[in-house]
């Protein structure tokens, strides 16, 4: 029998020791710890969703730095539809569709028209930022921030576990999107490693000519990967505007698309690694709220905490290990012409 990877074992041990440590704390501090867990999960959700989306795109061989633009499109469309139709579920669908549509443009430019992936991604970011801001003014006739949306994604409330120490505050009222984050991690692991589509996707990113000679379409596989990335980023954006928050604001993702990119690299382009990295970056993001409420002495250094994900990625890439992106990531595939 193959032993599980030692890194996962070490992670598991750390989690168990942490849990024991927290459970021995007095109740008030346990509540604070529970609150931190809850904010970590909330802040991690958009990051993990977008990062897993980015993984689908990059595993298929298309570099997607436009996650930020797709998240913004999703955040806007979700908010607008939820506001017009007074239904959060339709809003989520619209967010996925809008993100997917923008991603489809990126995919077609990169795959069909063999454009430079990073240039196209820059275009996607600029377009997403500008378009969502214009539409904000058009839909709500306000600048900077849209109107309050009453119909946000409802939390799933489980009153029975409210008094469970540590987990109570985080899981007794939890957004379905947060649960979906865990579900999608599992699903994408299964899809990537256990289904024909996942095999094709990985082949498209590692060695497209082999995939081509096996008779599958490299172009379609890649485009589908990019569209999945757009849908998930759109969902992550929608969580910001109609899940965690309740209004769309100008440039409300504030760089989360790039942190998601960092999480994807930190997680080494694997679903479970991304979940870990995303939770960690979400924890750092949540620390800001924690400092504001419980630990104001650290407030002057909030910027440094916000810096940490970026610095960590640079340090990790530079000093700890070489990152190994999919081999054909960012290289357009040219089919060989028949003689």
């Amino acid at each position, binding site marked *: 029998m193959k032993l599980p990877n030692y890194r996962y074992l070490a992670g598991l041990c750390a989690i168990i020791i942490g849990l024991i440590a927290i459970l021995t704390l007095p109740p008030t501090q346990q509540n604070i710890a529970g609150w931190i867990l809850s904010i970590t999960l909330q802040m991690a959700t958009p990051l993990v969703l977008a990062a897993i989306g980015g993984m689908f795109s990059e595993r298929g061989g298309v*570099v997607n*730095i436009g996650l930020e*633009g797709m998240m913004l499109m999703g955040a806007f469309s979700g908010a607008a539809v939820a506001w*017009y*139709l007074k239904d959060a579920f339709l809003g989520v669908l619209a967010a996925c569709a809008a993100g997917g549509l923008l991603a489809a*443009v990126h995919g077609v*430019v990169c795959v*069909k*028209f*063999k*454009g*430079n992936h*990073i*240039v*196209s991604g*820059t*275009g*996607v*970011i*600029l*377009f*997403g*930022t*500008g*378009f969502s*801001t*214009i*539409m904000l*003014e*058009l839909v709500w006739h306000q600048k900077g921030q849209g109107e309050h949306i009453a119909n946000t994604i409802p939390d799933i409330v489980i009153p029975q576990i409210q008094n469970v120490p540590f987990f109570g505050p985080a899981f007794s009222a939890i957004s379905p999107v947060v649960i979906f984050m865990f579900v999608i991690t599992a699903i994408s692991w299964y899809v990537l490693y256990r289904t024909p589509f996942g095999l094709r996707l990985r082949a498209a990113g590692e060695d497209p000519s082999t995939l081509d000679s096996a008779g599958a379409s490299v172009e379609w596989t890649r485009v589908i990967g990019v569209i999945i990335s757009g849908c998930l980023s759109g969902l992550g954006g929608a969580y910001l505007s109609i899940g965690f928050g309740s209004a769309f604001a100008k440039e409300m993702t504030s*760089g989360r698309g*790039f942190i998601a*990119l*960092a999480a994807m*690299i930190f997680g080494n382009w694997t679903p479970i690694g991304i979940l870990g990295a995303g939770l960690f970056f979400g924890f750092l993001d949540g620390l800001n709220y924690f400092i504001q409420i419980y630990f104001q002495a650290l*407030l*002057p*250094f909030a*910027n*440094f905490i*916000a*810096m940490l994900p*970026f*610095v960590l*990625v*640079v340090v990790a*890439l*530079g*000093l700890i290990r*070489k*990152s190994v*992106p999919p081999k054909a990531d960012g290289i357009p595939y040219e089919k060989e012409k028949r003689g």
Partner: protein
Amino acid sequence: MSEQDDTSIEVYEQISENISKVGQIIQGLISKVTSKEFIDQAIWTIGSILLALIVAAVIMLMGGYDPGQAFIWLAVGAFSQFDQVLWYASPLIIVGLSVAIAFRCGLFNIGAEGQLYMGSMASALLAYLYSFPILIHPILCLAVGMLAGAAWGFIPGLLKAYRGAHEVVTTMMLSYTAILFTSWLVSSNGPFWDGSSVPRTPQFYDTALLPLIFGNYLHFGFIIALMAVFIVDYLINKTVLGYEMRAVGYNTEAAEYAGINSKKNIVLALVISGALAGLAGSTEILGTYDRFTARWSSGLGWDGITVAVLGKNNPWGVLAGGIFFGALKAGGNTMHAIAHVPIEMVKVIQGLIVLFVAAPRIIEWLMDHTQENKDDAKIEPAKVVPRLLIAIFGLASVFIGLAASRVALISGLISPVVSIGAIILMLTAVIGTLLFIAEYSRNPRGTQLLLIIAIGWLLGGGIFSIGVGYLDITSILMGAIALVFWFAMLLLTKRETEEAIL
């Protein structure tokens, strides 16, 4: 033979002596401008810009703005305020050069924004903390700014050369680090805060500021930008370093075999790129502003990428691209003031231009099919003309569909029925684009798309009519036209197959 050659060389030398040096340069320019490569690239770039403007027009129509008026005011604004155009252009040109020179070495410096912040911060510190004589002060400030930017480019360069860390990732991450770091420095908790309610430094000494050269905006930074264009052009095309960088950019392994130290060149390219980005930040902070405010640049680094992309990473192209985007920005203000189109429209246009320039094959595809359609139209017009008509109908249905769905959404009657009608109309508009593509490239699937569009129009129009209580004639009419086209296409293909059998 050899005698003939000698004489011809002599004659040539005599001729070339007669032509003055200026004439030679002009001749060189003319031969460059008339070369096929240049014309091809110019056509692609202009075509991309036009396509981007068309898509922007669709978006404006959807938002209920008048694109014609908007573009006119954009142009008027750009041409009437030339000093503002150049003012906007000067930092863009320098950042564009920064991105372009890295790209020539095969590196994508996506974090010019961070290098720009570090550069401007460094020169801001020198500008307000220390006093120097009038000429020396700005020069020192600019030099320090370049050094700071170069240092911020040195880190990703080292990581790329010796650890293989991808520069896109490291520069991007360092860019956010720089933004957060500089905004902390000038915040109320940082050491360089001026004590006001805004996170910013105290005012600079007057000696440090760059002089204005024309009007109320245009400062000496533009001259620096022009000088930078000359120097970068010389560096890339005329020096050993530039040659080596280009060699590494084309093919790293081949350059290694030719004895070029690719690691050194990668580091140097990013250092120079960082220095240029730092210079851009310094000129802007000393010329336009008189103090460092947190997050002042609002995306100059990103704009630099678009400028480099539009200029095809050629210094002179970057100059043109910078002036073009400067004109967009200056004209955008006029467009906002008079036509009331939001200023972010400029960003959207910029993004679209980059998307289209990124894919030169879109223009290639359009040109190829135009040629094919033109050739075939001469031979058998009866088969080509209906298809072209349908393609035009597809394009028209995009515009009308978006406008109709917008009317439906903003009609004030927000009911699920109206919304569903509007969404169907919007989808029909999107399919209209596909119909155009299919019919233009004469894909047989166009006929099926036509039927889908007909159904979409009738369904969307019908549902909308039910929702609002009056008949939506436009949609029904479009649906009817689509049905007629579809029927005609059916007959046509039927006749074609019969002819083929006979």
